[in-house]
């Protein structure tokens, strides 16, 4: 379900993401690690990795890639559909990740943000980030069918 990002939501996400800056690698790899641990069915997409444990090289590398892409999406918030077109095609035609997993990764990322930022991850920030990640998922699903 997409609920459009208001100007206020965008400002909140941008301001919060300034805190995230520089920590993308750690946060991203923690989010991927959690997703694999808490939702083991997601491991199916990574059967080609030697090691799926938290902190492993493939998990860290992939976490960094994913989080860099999310940070990039923050800069493209005014046109996620256009900005994420290529990524949508990648996920739809090559990776073929079931879009249901976007919500799982978003939840995992939100839990990491809560553990890292604690009281700075206020309900207002939580809501704006939740809306933003939902919008990102929507844009990523665009080319699927």
């Amino acid at each position, binding site marked *: 379900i997409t609920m459009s990002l208001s100007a206020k939501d965008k400002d909140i996400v941008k301001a919060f993401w300034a805190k995230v800056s520089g920590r993308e690698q750690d946060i991203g790899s923690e989010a991927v690690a959690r997703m694999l641990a808490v939702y083991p069915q997601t491991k199916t997409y990574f059967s080609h990795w030697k090691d799926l444990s938290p902190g492993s090289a493939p998990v860290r590398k992939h976490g960094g890639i994913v989080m860099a892409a999310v940070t990039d999406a923050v800069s493209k918030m005014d046109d996620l559909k256009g900005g994420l077109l290529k990524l949508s095609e990648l996920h739809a035609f090559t990776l073929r990740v079931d879009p249901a997993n976007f919500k799982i990764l978003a939840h995992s990322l939100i839990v990491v943000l809560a553990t*890292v930022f604690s009281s700075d991850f206020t309900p207002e920030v939580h809501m704006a980030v939740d809306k933003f990640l939902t919008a990102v998922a929507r844009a990523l699903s665009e080319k699927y069918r």
Partner: protein
Amino acid sequence: MVEWSEKERSIINNIFSNLDYEDVGAKALIRCLIVYPWTQRYFASFGNLYNAEAISANPKVAAHGVKVLHGLDRAVKNMDNIKATYAELSVLHSEKLHVDPDNFKVHKHLLLLSFNKMISNAFSIPLQLLSDCLTIVIAGKLGSAFTPEVQAAFQKFVAVVVSALGKQYH
């Protein structure tokens, strides 16, 4: 029957024995009402819920949040039979939420049953949202101690509770 490893039992007991109920219970419900504002529909009698500030300051919200969190205590003590533990609590929720059947003169009993079933099914979704918020509040408090393994055990526990609460009418 849900199987629990010794590690999972220890994780759950550890979380709850070190929990600040007053703080976490209140914060979880407050967060749910702010992040998922449509859940406010269940709290029409709670007064001012107009914005995040009002919700955060509302004593009825805080009190109810603490009450809900203590509601998990039974499940912590009865991890091997959570479903039975909540049989009566589920009925309580359903009866509080149902439409007053006195408004309907015909087939009152059948209507009551179908409304209860509809509402218990509908209740599962906001319960899931609240349990997500509880997970996030606890994550915020425990920080890196809320490891992926701890998160998995906690989410499994809460999922069993939500399922037990929603399943009573099937």
